[in-house]
């Protein structure tokens, strides 16, 4: 069969011949190449081969994950935009939507930490402001190898510097995040960035190329040769010595992005834009293909009109470049000049480079000659979709076997080691490098509460935002551990007084061609789905990063969740700092386990056993109670039990009070054996939180707990000197000065990684 004439394309002079080797270098399997031949009815040009390579890469096509992602709950009353767009949007009332997404930039950040992390931030911001949402916050979730690994301090320093360099210049506050360390990340760090914006609910812009004849405009930075095949790189494992891939890493220019942001926001006030999409992974190719795909249209681009940084760039390079700070806009015909005027004001280029067509063909012309012509659907809906083999890991039973851990014997020493371990320790070294106050919206700053709390411009309500993940729990029990992440994220929001209303996910996994990795992936996605359904929280956006593997070493399955919640007007958001006096009440029923706990890892170097499970009715009762009590103004502080258990959480609250509380004392109803005490103090559990309440209102709180069916135990009081914990018999099992705990907590991060410490707080 001859291909239709409209879909023919001519090789350019000087194009390399399409050989088996060239096909393999483009990451296409022989089967995938056969599919390309079937679609085109002819061999692809070199340009087309490059396009198929990126569009069918795991990173762009979700060819492995699609069938699983479909199982996640994506609908809800508040959802204004679910997955499939540049970012998701949920309704927060007052005519406003909150627009957010999280995305990974793992591979580039390992190769070049500063630029990799910086452009990760730049990319996720564009995803949000392309929807007409004004970004108001950034968060991130980071994973590094062991603190003592020779590259860790360099990577931590570079990644934090890169996030700071981009976010600070943009003037978007970085308000929260989480960091953990594990040897499984020695060869593959994770950098997941989340952006949150505010959009008028009736003016959400989408990337749907509609209206044949409408002009397509290229705006922003010029196209250079950086980042070519970034998406393909992100769809492959590292061999030893990934530094050789540095040219595939993009270079960020936050000043240009700041102008791009302001120009786009200004432009979207006017009626000139039909569709808009940022050029992220696979640059010009994916943005144009995806817009045409959503519109059910075609698109023609004159590649010779693309503004370039250097002469002599081929169509292949222009189409696959991942140069940053660029957008593609479909304007209403006759209104191109409005786009041009606004971008000129901001000293940015805006050039008409093509138009929307009605033939379903993605066509690239160079000086009038067709160098690529591919059916749009072949690059989107008809991309490969794999049902990869899955197999329960052979060592799963062993992973889940309860470890034999002997008691350490000195609870105070254990507590200080946990507080000083870099996953738990004070992250001030990190967040003081992030401008977390700009835009005057930050009500709860990093480290002060279980979630960041922000003012919502245009509303009296407030927004709480957090990111969470616990890859050790997921490694040990993918289905249960993933549910735990949802429970913790919702709980963190509830501890500030917020109701969770939407989530975004970033699924970081190893090589999906390994059946055990695929099994973990499936189980984890099912676990996330279960948790989200239980908590009634829809996923509205997300990202998958596979091939986080070096040599034979895959990372732990690391799904991370970004969640946003709403605090009602008039409620004072809760922080974790203990007040100077009052009672301590433990909410929920603790079921401490040591499997996968920080205690097991830090003290016993054990990563084994079943992690804590979520009991959803109790969990949700706790969240409701926290919100209700916050609304009634009953609580002075709240902090959930998570890594490090009951004692660690309480110590964090004491340290966080910065001297306001001189100390606190609790009595834990546990038998006197050293093992039982350490399990109670450091075992990890879901469904629990510490709260502080005025003595006079304690009875009121306990009555409310009874009414709302949330278990509550008054365990202690604020005051005295330092942290004192008694067992059921009244014997002191832990007694440490606040100063000593503070030192361990504040110094631990920089010290264990070998970074220069920050000076003490003023």
């Amino acid at each position: 069969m001859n291909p239709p004439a409209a879909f023919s394309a001519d090789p350019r002079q000087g194009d390399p011949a399409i050989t088996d080797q060239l096909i393999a270098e483009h990451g296409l399997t022989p089967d995938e190449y056969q599919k390309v031949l079937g679609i085109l009815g002819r061999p692809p040009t070199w340009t087309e081969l490059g396009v198929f390579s990126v569009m069918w890469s795991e990173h762009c096509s979700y060819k492995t994950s699609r069938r699983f992602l479909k199982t996640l709950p994506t609908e809800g009353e508040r959802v204004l935009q679910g997955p499939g767009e540049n970012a998701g949007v949920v309704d927060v009332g007052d005519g406003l939507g909150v627009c957010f997404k999280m995305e990974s930039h793992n591979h580039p950040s390992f190769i070049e930490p500063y630029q990799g992390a910086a452009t990760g931030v730049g990319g996720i911001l564009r995803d949000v402001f392309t929807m007409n949402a004004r970004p108001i916050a950034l968060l991130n979730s980071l994973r590094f190898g062991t603190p003592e690994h020779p590259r860790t301090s360099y990577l931590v320093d570079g990644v934090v510097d890169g996030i700071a360099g981009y976010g600070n210049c943009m003037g978007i506050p970085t308000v929260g995040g989480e960091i953990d360390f594990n040897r499984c990340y020695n060869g593959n760090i994770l950098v997941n960035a989340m952006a949150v914006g505010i959009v008028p609910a009736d003016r959400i812009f989408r990337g749907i190329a509609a209206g044949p004849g409408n002009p397509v405009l290229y705006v922003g930075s010029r196209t250079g040769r950086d980042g070519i095949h970034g998406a393909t790189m992100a769809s492959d494992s590292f061999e030893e010595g990934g530094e050789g891939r540095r040219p595939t890493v993009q270079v960020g220019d936050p000043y240009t992005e700041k102008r791009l942001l302001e120009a786009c926001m200004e432009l979207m006030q006017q009626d000139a834009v039909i569709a808009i999409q940022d050029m992220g992974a696979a640059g010009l190719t994916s943005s144009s293909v995806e817009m045409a795909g959503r519109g059910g249209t075609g698109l023609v681009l004159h590649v010779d009109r693309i503004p370039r940084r250097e002469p002599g760039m081929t169509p292949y390079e222009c189409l696959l470049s991942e140069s940053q700070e660029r957008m593609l806009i479909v304007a209403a015909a006759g209104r191109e000049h409005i786009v041009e005027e606004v971008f000129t004001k901001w000293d940015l280029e805006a050039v008409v480079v093509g138009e929307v067509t009605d033939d379903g063909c993605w066509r690239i012309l160079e000086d009038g000659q067709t160098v690529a012509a591919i059916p749009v659907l072949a690059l989107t809906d008809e991309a490969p979709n794999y049902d990869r083999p899955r197999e329960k890991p052979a060592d799963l039973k062993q992973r889940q076997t309860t470890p034999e851990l002997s008691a350490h014997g000195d609870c105070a020493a254990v507590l200080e080691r946990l507080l000083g371990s870099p996953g738990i320790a004070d992250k001030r070294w990190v967040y003081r490098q992030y401008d977390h106050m700009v835009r005057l919206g930050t009500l709860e700053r990093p480290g002060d509460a279980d979630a960041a709390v922000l003012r919502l411009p245009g509303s009296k309500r407030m927004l709480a935002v957090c990111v969470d993940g616990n890859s050790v729990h997921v490694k040990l029990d993918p289905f249960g551990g993933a549910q735990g992440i949802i429970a913790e994220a919702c709980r963190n929001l509830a501890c500030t007084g917020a109701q969770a209303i939407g989530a975004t996910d970033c699924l970081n996994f190893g090589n999906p061609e390994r059946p055990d990795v695929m099994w973990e992936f499936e189980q984890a996605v099912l676990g996330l789905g279960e948790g989200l359904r239980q908590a009634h929280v829809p996923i509205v956006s997300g990202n998958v990063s596979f091939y986080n593997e070096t040599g034979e070493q895959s990372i732990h399955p690391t799904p991370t969740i970004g969640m946003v919640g709403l605090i009602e007007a008039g409620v004072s958001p809760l922080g974790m700092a203990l007040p100077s006096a009052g009672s301590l009440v433990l909410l929920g029923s603790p079921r401490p386990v040591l499997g996968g706990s920080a205690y097991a890892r830090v003290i016993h170097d054990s990563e084994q056993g079943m992690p804590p499970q979520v009991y959803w009715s109790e969990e949700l009762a706790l969240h409701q109670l926290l919100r209700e009590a916050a609304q009634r103004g009953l609580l002075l502080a709240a902090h959930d039990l998570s890594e490090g258990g009951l004692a660690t959480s309480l110590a964090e609250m004491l340290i966080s009070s910065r001297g306001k509380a001189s100390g606190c004392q609790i009595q834990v109803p546990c038998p006197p054996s050293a093992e039982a005490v350490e399990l109670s103090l450091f075992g990890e559990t879901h469904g629990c939180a510490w709260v502080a309440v005025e003595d006079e209102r304690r009875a009121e709180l306990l009555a409310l707990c009874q009414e709302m069916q949330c278990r509550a135990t008054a365990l202690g009081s604020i005051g005295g000197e330092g942290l004192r914990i008694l067992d059921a018999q009244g014997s002191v099992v832990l007694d440490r000065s606040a100063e000593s705990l503070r030192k361990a907590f504040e110094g631990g991060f920089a010290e264990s990684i070998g970074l220069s410490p920050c000076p003490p707080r003023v």
Partner: protein
Amino acid sequence: MRFGIVTFPGSNCDQDAHHVVSHVLGHEARFIWHKETDLEDVDCVILPGGFSYGDYLRCGAIARFSPIMDAVVRFANEGGYVIGICNGFQVLTETGLLPGVLLRNQGLKFICEDTRLVVANGHSPWTVLCPETLVAPIAHAEGCYFASPEVIGQLEEQGRVIFRYASSRGEELAESNPNGSINNIAGIINEAGNVLGMMPHPERNSETALGDASGAAIFRSIIHSFEARA
């Protein structure tokens, strides 16, 4: 009082400054685009924080050449009130309206944190209503104030150092200096007192909702001084 807030393309604290002087303090405020050449009828110019032109070169070095700056210099030389906050301070030293220079922080890192200030001269138009100490949020990588010993001597002698980093009890300690500035200098004025440059961001602590409102005293002081002068 009418405030004019200059917006360079990389300014990112212009909205914050506008919010405080207009919504919190109830005065008129308008944005002045960097390509404009006329300040029109403003009573106080705010050069806000941010990264004026990206600051890939020395901070503020390009802003100095922006079209609006000629008008700002004229306005300042005629006695008009000008406050440069953070990047705005850097722009003022680059234009020569204030002496000295802001170097990379001693610790080489960007620092975003609350610091404390003592008001070293409570008689300037910018400090007449200030309490003895203020909370002072900073957010900069280049805030280490440096000048020749002669200039420092002159500034000190003339009472032109008006803010210094201090402990919460108001002691000017080395530990309370976040960036290595000479003599813990956080803010200085010109000889006539009508131009202020400071690294901390008073607009970030001008509302109790954000935890502290002591920074508003600086804006209230200049409003008071303007009204007294008029």
